[in-house]
């Protein structure tokens, strides 16, 4: 069976159930790269341009980890990840990612490029091209496509219900594979007394190596974590109407979710997690701090992560944030 490798990075966190169902439906075997580790990150950093954000470096690492054990490499070109009336894009680095990988990684297996441009309804056409590349019949493509949309819809529902991508995938695929890694937020901590909203890109928040298991850390400190993925798209859309438009599709979610959480009474604190050298976030973080936050908003902190961030640094800042919230409410 043809082995197709999917890097466990970037679009994996949002679309993996769709990719997996689709590729398996088209008669291929899906191979996933190992969870991020030290070696993998170092390899990525070595092969990647120096001054780029860590998610792209991680993507390189995952590609390098996969390339010698698969027949095809599945790379997504994320052009836009949300439906909108106006033009939206992701960051230029994500749009140009397949080009970067092709130019700078040697010994790649043949690359299958999958374009995700949600606003231009590219899913169907990308699926058709993918099916043709794999010599699948039109009826098989159609069947696989509709099944993958179903699986993806179930997955999105689980995310909306508050599961992490990992748990949601496990629930969707009912325990067959793809569940390795540290489970986040499993209740071994004290009874939660604080509600902390975590906003940031899912490929950063849920990569436990690079985020130093931030969600788990928060729950051990007695916090209930609300994820950005729990904010329904229509809420984000209505929140966004309060601000002048922006055109980055990932950041629209950030801005909408930040506005939602910063205006909610039952949220005790908001953590904005960004990676160093992230282009759009440098602007949107500033917009959130200056345009969204008000006097009555819950405390907001920004946590900047990169490949050099030490675990102790993250731990100290998270603890300090939580302690300060507790102190300010007189809950020692």
């Amino acid at each position, binding site marked *: 069976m043809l082995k197709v490798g999917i890097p466990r990075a970037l679009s994996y966190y949002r679309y993996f159930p769709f990719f997996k169902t689709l590729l398996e439906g088209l008669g291929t075997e899906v191979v996933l790269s190992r969870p991020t580790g030290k070696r993998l990150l170092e390899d990525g950093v070595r092969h*990647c*341009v*120096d*001054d*780029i*954000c860590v998610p792209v470096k991680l993507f390189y690492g995952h590609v390098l980890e996969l390339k010698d054990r698969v027949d095809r490499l599945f790379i997504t*070109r994320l*052009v836009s990840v949300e439906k909108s009336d*106006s*033009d939206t*894009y*992701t*960051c*230029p*680095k994500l*749009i*140009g990612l*397949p*080009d*970067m990988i092709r*130019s*700078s990684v040697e010994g790649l297996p043949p690359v299958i490029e999958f374009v995700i441009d949600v606003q231009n309804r590219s899913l169907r056409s990308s699926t058709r091209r993918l099916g043709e590349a794999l010599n699948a019949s039109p009826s098989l493509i159609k069947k696989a496509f509709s099944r993958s949309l179903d699986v993806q819809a179930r997955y999105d529902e689980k995310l909306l219900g508050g599961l992490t991508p990992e748990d949601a995938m496990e629930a969707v695929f009912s325990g067959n594979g793809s569940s390795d890694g540290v489970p986040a937020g499993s209740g071994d901590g004290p009874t939660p007394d604080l509600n902390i909203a975590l906003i940031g890109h899912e490929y950063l928040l849920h990569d436990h190596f690079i985020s130093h298991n931030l969600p788990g850390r928060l729950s051990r400190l007695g916090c209930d974590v609300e994820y950005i993925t729990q904010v329904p798209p229509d809420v984000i859309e209505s929140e966004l109407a309060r601000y*002048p*438009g*922006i*055109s*980055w599709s990932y950041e629209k979610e950030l801005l909408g979710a930040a506005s939602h959480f910063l205006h909610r009474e039952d949220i005790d604190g908001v953590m904005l997690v960004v990676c*160093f*050298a*992230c*282009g*759009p976030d*440098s*602007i949107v*973080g*500033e*917009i959130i701090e*200056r*345009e969204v936050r008000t006097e009555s908003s819950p405390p907001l902190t920004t946590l*900047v992560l990169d490949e050099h961030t030490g675990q102790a640094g993250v731990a100290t800042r998270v603890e300090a944030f939580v302690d300060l919230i507790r102190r300010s409410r007189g809950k020692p």
Partner: protein
Amino acid sequence: MKVSFPHMGNAYIALSALLSNLGAEVIVPPRPTRKTIEMGALHAPEFVCLPFKVNLGDNFQALSMGADTLAMVSGTWACRFGYYGRVQHQILRDAGYEFDSILLGRDGVGAVYNKFADTVDGNLALGWLRAYRSFGAKARAVDALESKAREIRPFERDAGATTAALSNSLSLVHDSGSVKATGSALDHGLELMDAVDVERKDEPLHIAVLGEIYAVLEPALNFDIERRLGDMGVMAHPVMTVYKWLFRPLKTDPSILFEERRARKVTRPYIAYVLGGEEHQTIAGTIDAARKGYDGVIHVFPFTCMPESVCRAILPQIEREYDIPVLNLCLDEHASPTGVETRLEAFTDLLRQRRRKKPRKPA
């Protein structure tokens, strides 16, 4: 109305002409220095690109010089530049300044057009026409002078003579009033440049300078790379010029539009999608440099620039395919002139050695 705008190379000459013909008093902040950059970096988001910090510093200086209106272009693009005006003006307001914003692109053409109804002398439409003509004349004059300086600098007998003549000529153009006066200022300026004493030397090295547009055009950011190269006896060929940058969005000059389209076409095999920056100029410019027989390419871009980071990953492939050396200069507020100088010297030494082994093919 005392209006100001951030610097970008010598664009201030044409932009001042535009605004002063509309009856506004133009406040031109001093050319950006390290101090400007520090001031901007202090208030800007930590890892925003360097042009943001320089522009913000310019705005701080303009406001302290009494400006009451700040102009900036704005748009919702994939590149951060579209958000500069919005975020910078908010930062300045939070810092306690009060001023009026002109965000060209977001405010709409009509709003910007009518903004000058009270200040303009006489009819508004005629004022805009006059402003546009003066703007175009000065932009072209600056362009002519800059390219003249580029041609003679590697051959000058007295070090610095060209730079001095250029700066005198530019102030002649800047001070000229009517379109006719701009024309004679340009003629006078060109005479000044012709008076620079030159000597015949061997064929100089030819290096294309390309990358992120502000990094290519703003001497404060790139440590005046064009002059530095010229002083080293190297002929610099910037791919972008202030004139092209000013006139590209106006879509009035067919040759610029044609060049844009061609660059996009050449870039497509390497970057299949439009990234929203200058990536096509970078990729196509490097290929063109190889085809024209230049000795090398210098790729300058600000740290964390998104489209140019993609180019940075792709350029090594073009370097191999077209056999042209590329020097990548990634600059931020911590870059030092000595560091840049050293790298330029090493690069040009390398190119000279290469030339000895492999004589330059005729262009």
